[in-house]
């Protein structure tokens, strides 16, 4: 089957996770992974997450700044709530809700970034 | 003796200046008449009148009018409870006419527990009126001989007026919030036309006395017969349940202590109840006691006996 291989979308806050991702040297881990930059994890919307999945993404991993350390005070808390709603929607649709996940890392946490991506990939692929 | 409003036994007891005692009889959750007969057997001769509850706590039971009629056959005088939860003004007035026609002379007007607490929480409630408006409606029916709409109570233009002569009761909860509003609400019931009042069951005597003082300050006790509610505690569990789970009820810890230390919990519960009755009897403005022995009717005779309220006085009809 010549089907386009679906990808894990990682929605990254540009103040933390995106910087952590930029420091990656091992590119193998990034196979079938697409990093998407957001100004803040608070920009994430339920509809946006679902849209990525509808468009064929294998999963969506949202990475915000550590809780209580959002550049915009509470964007990451808001993102967490929205991810919860997206998970509920997936559940409703009969789709594995673990296709969506949120976690919080700092710009220095490249190792955590790798671990989270690895873990998510192992559940998805 | 002044002219009686309804001429019920309860009214005569009060008019004679006697300390009245009423009890409660919950109709069966079936069409089983025997339940009424058994319960009536415990109460007959030991109390002046018996409240017949109206689907209490919103659980379906035999109609209070039917059960009251049956109790009457057993020699009891019923006080029919009517709540505003299940019936609108049309239905209630119709039932009042019917009840009176069957010989029922006392009605206790209640708002009614919310259906959420009963066995049909999905039902629609009515609350066309509240208990105060219900009292007023009955008073208008009795004294002005008119229905709530203003029409005279007669079958046709030429027919005689036959109004239901009902002795009208109301309830009072001295312990609900806002506390300051409780006496106002009682006053409104009296203004609406209540002849007698039965209170929620009382454990916290100090708080009740505080409320009674407010009642006396307004002179309400001179306008209405106030019956204090008492409920014997069967067990420590029941006492704790009443304390923790019933809105507007506070059971002081010393009663719970007494019960837990007692060997025979039931006997201790009855002893406490008797002490309460004796204390209430001394209180100025209390005209009687309403004994709500919840599913414990068979112990009513000994409570009344120990409280020194037997035999019940004769009042001629």
């Amino acid at each position, binding site marked *: 089957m010549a089907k386009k291989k679906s990808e894990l979308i990682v929605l990254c806050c540009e103040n933390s996770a995106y910087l952590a991702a930029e420091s990656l040297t091992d590119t193998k881990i990034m196979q079938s992974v697409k990093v998407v930059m957001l100004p803040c994890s608070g920009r994430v*919307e*339920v*509809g946006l997450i*679902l*849209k990525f*999945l*509808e468009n064929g993404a294998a999963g969506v991993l949202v990475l915000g700044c550590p809780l209580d350390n959002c550049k915009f005070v509470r964007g990451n808390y808001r993102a967490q709530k929205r991810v919860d*709603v997206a998970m509920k*929607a*997936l559940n*409703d*649709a*009969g*789709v594995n809700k673990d296709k969506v996940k949120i976690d919080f890392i700092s710009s220095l946490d490249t190792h955590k970034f790798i671990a989270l991506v690895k873990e998510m990939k192992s559940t998805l692929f | 003796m002044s002219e009686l409003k309804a001429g019920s036994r309860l009214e005569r007891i009060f008019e004679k200046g006697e300390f009245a005692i009423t009890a409660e009889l919950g109709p069966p959750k079936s069409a089983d008449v025997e339940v009424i007969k058994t319960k009536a057997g415990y109460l007959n001769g030991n109390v002046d009148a018996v409240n017949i509850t109206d689907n209490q706590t919103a659980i379906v039971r035999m109609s209070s009018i039917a059960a009251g009629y049956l109790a009457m056959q057993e020699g009891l005088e019923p006080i029919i409870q009517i709540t*505003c*939860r299940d019936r609108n*003004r049309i239905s209630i007035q119709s039932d009042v006419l019917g009840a009176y026609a069957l010989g029922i002379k006392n009605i206790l007007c209640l*708002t*009614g*527990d*919310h259906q*959420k607490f009963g066995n049909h929480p999905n039902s629609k*409630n009515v*609350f*066309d*009126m*509240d*208990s*105060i*408006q219900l009292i*007023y*409606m009955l008073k208008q029916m009795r004294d002005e001989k008119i229905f*709530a709409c203003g029409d005279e109570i007669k079958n046709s233009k030429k027919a005689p007026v036959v109004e239901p002569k009902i002795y009208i009761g109301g*309830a009072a*909860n001295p*312990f*609900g*919030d*806002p506390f*300051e*509003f409780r006496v*106002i*609400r009682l*006053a*409104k019931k009296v*203004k*609406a036309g209540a002849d007698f009042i039965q209170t*929620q069951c009382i454990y916290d005597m100090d708080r009740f006395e505080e409320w009674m003082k407010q009642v006396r300050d307004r002179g309400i006790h001179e306008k209405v017969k106030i019956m204090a509610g008492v409920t014997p505690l069967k067990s420590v569990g029941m006492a704790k349940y009443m304390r923790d789970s019933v*809105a*507007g009820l506070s059971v002081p810890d010393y009663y719970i202590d007494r019960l837990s230390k007692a060997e025979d919990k039931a006997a201790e519960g009855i002893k406490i109840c008797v002490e309460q009755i004796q204390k209430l009897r001394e209180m100025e403005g209390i005209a009687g006691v309403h004994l709500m022995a919840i599913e414990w009717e068979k112990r009513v005779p000994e409570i009344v006996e120990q409280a020194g309220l037997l035999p019940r006085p004769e009042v001629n009809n």
Partner: protein
Amino acid sequence: MIVGEQKPFEKVYESVKEYKKVLILGCGTCVTVCMAGGEKEVGILASTIRLANKQNGIRMEIQEATVARQCDREFFDEVKDKINWADAVLSMACGVGVQFCSEVFEGKRVLPALNTRFYGTTEQQGIWSERCAGCGDCVLDKFGGICPIARCSKSLLNGPCGGSQDGKCEVDPDNIDCAWQLIYDRMKLLGCLENLEENQVIKDWSAGRDGGPGKIVREDMVL
């Protein structure tokens, strides 16, 4: 505003899954404000249905649109092509909008995606609560601006029942304030507690739902 909330997804899906072309139609007024049926919710519901269709192997085309108000005829003009295209319209408006849409487009299947709950206010972001029961005969002047009909579980007009405890209603102490505690406190603040001693007579309910479906005709405004 009219406050609604979405029906459980499975109920919505059950009602819509037999159709091949579905328009999900949001409403831009009350239900947008109460976050039940605005453009964002339209998108989320559309995506969820598409994902569910994929999962269940159902072929369905879905379009999305939101109009300013579904309770006025003119607003449907801009979406009439989409409505005509659809086998069924899944309306995310309140009950008024759903009915009006099906009235404007007779013969079109219009399905509700929301449960209409009450007339209420945004108590705070994300929390809405009932304030008015639409009884048709406003009594707020008598109760310090707090409605006992809408806010007392038993619509009592003469004071609190025995189920008022610590300012809460026994029907649901976590979520319902005792309206009569509120009224008492407000009247005390306004210095007119004595007004509460007045006996309120039995209410005329005929101006509200009990008088049959309501209708208002303003002769001067009729063109």
